């Protein structure tokens, strides 16, 4: 397998509505930013993988074909990935495989979503209609008629987990919300930068038990593009590429009622296991410097700590309480602000997170830079009851060259970086 580097990153503002742009105009903006960042032109791109989730959002089936045309890639290889909330991450996975297989030297991953062009005229707001559009992803015969929402889909495994372990508590979940809104203060593209208190979160209105308003991410519009390159190409383009050293992809049983254990994000466990194995990571809790996790809901971030083996089953709540996952802790989670702080422009989200991880290991993350960030984890979740996960390990070049896993920092779990 060929090594795969990230050589260009471009993300538009994530915001509630891009009223002055269509989905292909937004896609164009991200593509242009990523090409400029890589220092290449569109003629240098071997192919494009599109991450676009929902036809009803875009008001268009096969939206990728019109973007491909709009951004001037006509004639080049292209495929669209649609894996629910994991769309962006899975698109990165597919583009990675094209380069790993030696098919192309340079591949663009382009994620975009216009989530709030749909509109509920009775309420005078997009969200109920956005939720309706999403619910077409629930099994139309057995689950769609039950009035499930995306939040409910996450709450079901979470309540099972709380029932078994007593955690996460509502306070621990609120702390994740405070952290991610706060991290977003350092991210110029973020939709929801906010200084909140735990009480602000606890006192916000109930949306889907146990998630209150500030436990939820917001729907965003935006686009994000990254340019992946083969080893030779990456080294020719930059002396400081980020490397995708591990990938994993899992699709668990979408009829979650068939699962053996409702309390684990099994798809994240499997995707993480595979990504860790490929990257040679044995002790993620000490070997990872940061993670960009799929915090669509606060409780999901906490269950993800457990699925990715950053702690034992039921131990996720303690990681936020002990400050480990704060920017000041030794394993900051979602320095970008994550989905809660930066936003969730579905198809663009996983691409944005991968780009953020690359900026971190390249030392280009400005005010949200994690000190000495060398190895990071990216998680992209989608589908009913977190059925899908794409996971990526993003590393700085010197760690890939030498792989000195054993000599890496030996911080004790629970200690803080000073």
């Amino acid at each position, binding site marked *: 397998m060929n090594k795969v580097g990230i050589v260009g990153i471009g993300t538009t503002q994530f915001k509630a509505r891009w009223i002055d742009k269509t989905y292909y105009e937004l896609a164009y903006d991200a593509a242009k930013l990523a090409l400029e960042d890589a220092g290449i032109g569109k003629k240098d791109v071997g192919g494009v993988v599109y991450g676009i989730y929902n036809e009803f959002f875009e*008001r268009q089936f096969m939206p990728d074909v019109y973007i491909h045309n709009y951004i001037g890639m006509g004639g080049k290889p292209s495929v669209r990935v649609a894996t629910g909330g994991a769309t962006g991450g899975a698109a990165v996975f597919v583009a990675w495989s094209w380069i790993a297989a030696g098919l192309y030297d340079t591949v663009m991953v382009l994620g975009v979503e216009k989530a709030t062009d749909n509109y509920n005229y009775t309420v005078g707001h997009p969200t109920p209609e956005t*939720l309706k559009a999403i619910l077409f992803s629930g099994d139309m015969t*057995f689950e769609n008629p*039950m009035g499930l929402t995306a939040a409910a889909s996450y709450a079901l495994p979470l309540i*099972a987990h709380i029932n078994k372990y007593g955690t996460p508590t509502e306070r621990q979940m609120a702390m994740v919300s405070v952290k991610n809104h706060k991290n977003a203060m350092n991210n110029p593209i973020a939709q929801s930068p906010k200084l909140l208190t735990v009480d602000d979160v606890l006192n916000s209105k109930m949306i889907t038990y146990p998630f209150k308003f500030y436990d939820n991410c917001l729907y965003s519009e935006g686009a994000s593009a990254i340019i992946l390159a083969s080893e030779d190409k990456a080294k020719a383009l930059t002396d400081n590429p980020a490397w995708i050293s591990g990938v994993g992809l899992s699709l668990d049983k979408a009829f979650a*009622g068939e699962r053996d254990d409702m309390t684990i994000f099994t798809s994240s466990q499997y995707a993480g296991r595979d990504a860790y194995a490929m990257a040679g990571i044995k002790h993620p809790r000490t070997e990872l410097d940061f993670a960009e996790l799929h915090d669509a809901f606060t409780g999901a971030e906490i269950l993800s700590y457990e699925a990715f083996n950053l702690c034992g089953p039921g131990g996720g709540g303690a990681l936020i309480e002990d400050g480990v996952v704060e920017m000041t802790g030794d394993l900051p989670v979602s320095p970008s602000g994550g989905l809660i702080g930066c936003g969730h422009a579905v198809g663009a989200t996983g691409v944005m997170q991968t780009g953020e991880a690359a900026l971190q290991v390249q030392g280009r993350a400005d005010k949200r830079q994690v000190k000495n960030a060398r190895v990071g984890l990216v998680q992209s979740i989608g589908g009913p009851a977190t059925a899908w996960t794409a996971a990526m390990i993003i590393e700085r070049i010197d760690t890939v060259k030498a792989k000195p896993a054993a000599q890496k920092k030996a911080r004790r779990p629970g200690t803080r970086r000073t």
Partner: protein
Amino acid sequence: MIQNKEQWLEEASRKIKVPKELIARAFHEELEGNPAIDAPLEVPDIMDITYKYTYGGISRFFRELRDNQQLYGTKCTTCGTVWLPPRINCNECYAPTTWVKLGDTARIVTYTIVYYATSVFYGKTPYVCAFVKVDGADTLIMQNVFLKDVRQAKVGMKLKIQFKENRNGDMGDFWFVPAQEAL
């Protein structure tokens, strides 16, 4: 500028099946204001498809619900797993299944309470969505649980099935209530 506002509203209302007043409210700026020629222009639209959908091999499940107020699962002829939702084959054994009558009692394995719903369910909140284990089935099915107070929902809560009076042959034909209440 929209030339004939009344006609525009009538056509929009017919097209997207929304009352004229609500469309007028949403497009107030376009109808009454004076937007610049290059200001973003929004239009009312809808995506709409009608179906005559077949339930295929699990048609009997919905006929039993609709015509006989009876819940059926399917049992794998090889491993014996009882499936609910039913399926006509087993995804472990790749063997056929046979229909089995299920009990009318169940319990909550996990649940959530929806306070903010999709457009379709907007006026029906709060309501409980749960994965329930029906007695006689090995898998869980998602269903609504109706409670006097939604906050009574609990993992392990014992339930009894209830059928709708006028059934249509879909998952809305039944739901669950607490076992004591149904007695």
